Structures are given as structure tokens and as C-alpha cells.
């Protein structure tokens, strides 16, 4: 069996019909991880015990002839920013090197309750801060499509594991593009739902008003299945919305004919690679040929998205990361003699360069004398960016853009220039600021065979429409 093309339904049906067992699926994935992951670096921790006991439960159900739950026996893996009870969770940081959580992230718990088999925890940029996965404190991730290139970030391990056949589906987190951009670079589907659609309980916070959990999968239907499993109100997250969850899989059956697709001119200007442009244009033509109406729209404040985003995100991060102080969990510097010394030495030794940079930027933007000029200003621009979408969505059902301005770049290419790295997120950050859903679906690859992602953005809580359009692009 080719593990690189296995889908959720195929994996589950094979167990249900007893052509194989969930235990065999888990073991064959662990075998593939042990043969492939040395060169890719997607996994930080394996949860063999937890996986095999869940697989045994699913096998017992199948043996009794019972109907398996929707993800019954399906091997999945989790970005290491979501806490997992009794399974080490590092957030890609040295400061949490030995952290063993005492509870489960809601999204992870819901997958497991639906029968998923959790193989382990996936590498990522430290605290999800990065666009290339080179900020992991443990090891970089190599793009399975070209090992010299980055897998994107921050959910680089999540995208690489799906692309390399080491998990059928994975969870990532997206604060400014961290699901969609790696999905684009690795040639898989990545979905960032609406803010509030999936509970953030148990997601190690980076920027609370921008953080989202979502799936990375091999096709759109699997993304719909994963979302259906995780979505819905969670009393443990007060920002999770009290809105009914549609059957996203059933919604895929509806036709895309007659849907209005907006194409914002601002996303096709300077800085966009010619091959990426062509790939997105082909996708737009494809949608037009399926009966969608293509409409020119404008997002006039797009040029201000990255600066506004990096102020809002880092300000929130500086507050969220204050909790890592060496007292309740994680690393503590052994050198310190006083409490304040302990905080400083612990944080200095535990955080990497990009995390410190963002804490510093965020602290600066919030500090007396700069709060109005930077933080409040960025929040006002956030309003303008959100209004841009509200106006565009008055005319169209969805918006199509590139996911990232280029295909995957080489390891080391941008790692010394934080600003150049931030620009890799230019088409994705606005969806986080506005809270709208977005999906990256593979388009026509480059001539040299590198994947390119097409991004489809939708109205709040209208994941069904963008999933349907994404499927029409597949």
C-alpha cells in the first residue's frame, strides 16, 4: 500500500472491512517514519503507546462488526504547539524541552474521540513563529518534494508529514499563514477555519486574537472531515463560537456553478513570482469553466497588512510568552540566585533568536510612549483591513489569491533577514486579522516540479463554500 496517497476514508474503510487493521496502519506508519524521517525531520516525539492502544480499541470495534467512528483507525499527527496528555509537548522550544502536559487540547481530544490514532508530535518553528521551520530549536524540516528547500512554516512538520506519507492527516496552527503557506510549499491541502470555529483550548498561545487550529490533508474532502470533527462550541474556550456546525462533507456535493469569485488586483502585483501567478490564473479559469463568475475586487489596504500584523501579533506574543518564567513548568536556569535573575536567565537560555526578537518588538510596541503610535495604530489598520474584506464580500462569495508569492525557497535563503521572511506571509496574514476562513489547495506546479498553492478565502463561518471551490480546483 502506498502510504503517500492514503486518504481518511480509504484508511478507515480498510479497517472497517477488515482488509487490514488499525494496528497495521499505525505500525506501517511508524516504520515509514523510521525509514524516511531522518532526512525530513518532521517528528519531534512519537506517541507509540497511545497510538497502539487506540488502534487496538478500533480493531476490537471492527472485529465485533461495529460501525467505526468517522476517523476510526486513521493515523494522524499533531503540531507540537497543541498539548497532549502524557506526551511531551515542546512548541519547538528548548524552554519546554521536557514538558509533559497534564491535559489534552480540545481539538486533539475530538479527533481521538472520533477514532483517530495519534502517532506523535510534529516539528514547527519555535512557538509557531516563522515561515520556514528553520526557527525550530531542535532541527529544521526538509521539504519532501525537494530536500534542499524549506517546507514552509510554522507548521512545516505538519505539511511535510502529510506530503511524505508519514501521517494521513495532521493538525497545524495558523496565526498569519502557518497552515496555508506550508501546505502550499509541500503540495497538500491546508485549511484555516474562521476564528472561533475550532476551540483553541490547549493550543500554546502565540497571539490569541489571531491563533487558529486547522487540518493539513491530502485532499479537500479529508480537510472537510477533519473540520467537521473538530468544529463547534467548547466551554473551555470562551471565544469558540456558538454556531451550528454544518456537515462540511455533505456540502461538498453541491455545485459551484453561479458562485461569484473575487480576484483582488492587489494580490497580483510586484513581488509575485510569474509561475505562481500563472498557476493561480489557471485555477481561476478552471473555476470559471465550472460556471463560477469571476469578478474583479479590490483590497485597497493590502500593502499595510504585514506591518499591522507584526505589531498586533508580537504585542500579543509578548504578553502570552510572559508565562514562561521557569516556575511552574519547563526549563529553569540553574545559575540564578534571585527570583528576577532566575526569570531572565531562564528566558535568555530557553528562547531562540526569533522568539526574543518578537517579544522585544511586541514589548516595545506596548511600552509607554509607543502604545498609541504602534499598537493602537496597528489595531485601527486592522479595522480597515477587515472592512476591505467586508466590502469585497458584499459582491462575491469567495476570493482567490496566491497562498505565497513564491514556491518553496532554499534552506538558509532568508534565515538572516527577518523582514524578507515576514513577506512570505503577505497574502495570508489578512485572513487572520479579519478572522475569515482560508484554504490553500495545490495548483499547477512550477516547471521544475515544485508545488504552488492557490488560496481561497471566504466569509466568516462559510468554510463550506471555500471547501467546495477548493475541491473544484483539485
Amino acid at each position, binding site marked *: 500500500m502506498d502510504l503517500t496517497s492514503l486518504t481518511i476514508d480509504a484508511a478507515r474503510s480498510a479497517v472497517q472491512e477488515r482488509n487490514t487493521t488499525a494496528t497495521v496502519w499505525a505500525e506501517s506508519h511508524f516504520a515509514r517514519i523510521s525509514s524516511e524521517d531522518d532526512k525530513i525531520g518532521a517528528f519531534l516525539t512519537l506517541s507509540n503507546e497511545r497510538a497502539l492502544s487506540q488502534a487496538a480499541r478500533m480493531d476490537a470495534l471492527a472485529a465485533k462488526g461495529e460501525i467505526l467512528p468517522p476517523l476510526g483507525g486513521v493515523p494522524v499527527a499533531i503540531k507540537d504547539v497543541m498539548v497532549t496528555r502524557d506526551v511531551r509537548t515542546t512548541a519547538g522550544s528548548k524552554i519546554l524541552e521536557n514538558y509533559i502536559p497534564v491535559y489534552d487540547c480540545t481539538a486533539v481530544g475530538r479527533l481521538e474521540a472520533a477514532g483517530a490514532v495519534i502517532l506523535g508530535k510534529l516539528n514547527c518553528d519555535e512557538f509557531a513563529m516563522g515561515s520556514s521551520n528553520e526557527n525550530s530549536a531542535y532541527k529544521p524540516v526538509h521539504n519532501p518534494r525537494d530536500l534542499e528547500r524549506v517546507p514552509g512554516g510554522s507548521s512545516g512538520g505538519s505539511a511535510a508529514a502529510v506530503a511524505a506519507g508519514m501521517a494521513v492527516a495532521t493538525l497545524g496552527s495558523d496565526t498569519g499563514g502557518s497552515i496555508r503557506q506550508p501546505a502550499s510549499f509541500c503540495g497538500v491541502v491546508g485549511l484555516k477555519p474562521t476564528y472561533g470555529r475550532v476551540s483553541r483550548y490547549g493550543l500554546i498561545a502565540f497571539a490569541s486574537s489571531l491563533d487558529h487550529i486547522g487540518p493539513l490533508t491530502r485532499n479537500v474532502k479529508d480537510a472537510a472531515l477533519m473540520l467537521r470533527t473538530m468544529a463547534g462550541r467548547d466551554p473551555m474556550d470562551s471565544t469558540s463560537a456558538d454556531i451550528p456546525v454544518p456537515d462540511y462533507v455533505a456540502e461538498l456535493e453541491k455545485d459551484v456553478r453561479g458562485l461569484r469569485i473575487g480576484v483582488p488586483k492587489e494580490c497580483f502585483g510586484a513581488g509575485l513570482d510569474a509561475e505562481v501567478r500563472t498557476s493561480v490564473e489557471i485555477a481561476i479559469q478552471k473555476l470559471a469553466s465550472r460556471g463560477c463568475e469571476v469578478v474583479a475586487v479590490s483590497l485597497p489596504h493590502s500593502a499595510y497588512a504585514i506591518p499591522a500584523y507584526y505589531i498586533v501579533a508580537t504585542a500579543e506574543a509578548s504578553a502570552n510568552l510572559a508565562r514562561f518564567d521557569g516556575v511552574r513548568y519547563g526549563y529553569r536556569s540553574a545559575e540564578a540566585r534571585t527570583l528576577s535573575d532566575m526569570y531572565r536567565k531562564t528566558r535568555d537560555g530557553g528562547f531562540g533568536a526569533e522568539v526574543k526578537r518578537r517579544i522585544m*518588538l511586541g514589548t516595545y510596541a506596548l511600552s509607554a510612549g509607543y502604545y498609541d503610535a504602534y499598537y493602537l495604530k496597528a489595531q485601527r489598520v486592522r479595522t480597515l483591513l477587515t472592512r476591505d474584506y467586508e466590502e469585497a464580500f458584499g459582491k462575491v462569495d469567495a476570493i482567490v489569491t496566491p497562498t505565497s508569492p513564491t514556491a518553496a525557497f532554499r534552506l538558509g535563503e532568508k534565515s538572516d533577514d527577518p*523582514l524578507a521572511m515576514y513577506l512570505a506571509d503577505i497574502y495570508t496574514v489578512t485572513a487572520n486579522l479579519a*478572522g475569515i476562513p482560508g484554504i490553500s489547495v495545490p495548483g499547477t506546479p512550477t516547471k521544475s516540479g515544485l508545488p504552488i498553492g492557490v488560496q481561497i478565502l471566504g466569509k466568516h463561518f462559510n468554510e463550506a463554500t471555500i471547501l467546495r471551490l477548493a475541491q473544484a480546483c483539485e
Partner: protein
Amino acid sequence: MKVTDKDVAYVADLANLELTEEERPRMLRDLNAILGYVDLLEELNTKDVAPMAQVSDRFGVDPAKTGSARFAYARREDIHEGLRKSLAPAVALRGAPETDGTFFEVPKVIEK
């Protein structure tokens, strides 16, 4: 240059970071580069634009409801046992670098 050496030291202090001698010049350079780019925002007149801190207070709530009624779904009864049972002390302390079995232990707080 917007940010000076002194600012880096001050902000590091606020953020409970020390930064090594090698880290400081790099931090100075990066902060100036990023803030230089952020200056782009000054082009926009935002005098009459309300700041936006959250998405969930505008989207995903019933617009017909106002005030606290709008967020009534997020309220819950005070539950002493059951749904949100607290962690047992031994569990809560499990990940701590130093404890005495009941409390987290830290170095001396009062510095002489």
C-alpha cells in the same frame, strides 16, 4: 535610527530578558529594520477608525442581541465538582522545576 542601545536595554528589562553582548547589536539592527517598515502605517489617516482587538465580539455572535446578552452562551453555572474539577496538587506540580510537594519553589524573592 529609531531604536537606540539604551532602548534595547530598557525593553529587554521590561520583557524579563537579558540578551548577551552578541545579541544586542543584532537586536538593535533588526528592530530598526522592522520598525522602519512599520512606519508605512503612518501613511494612513486612522483618526476616525476604531481600533479592533478581537474578531469574536463582531462575528459569530447574534447581532440582534446587545450587551451581555450577546455573550450569554459563554456563561456557565459555577461548578464546584465535575466539568472543571481542578488538577490535584501532585499533578499540577508534576512539571515544575522545583517544588516542596505543596508549593512551587523559587529562589529568594527579596534581594539584599
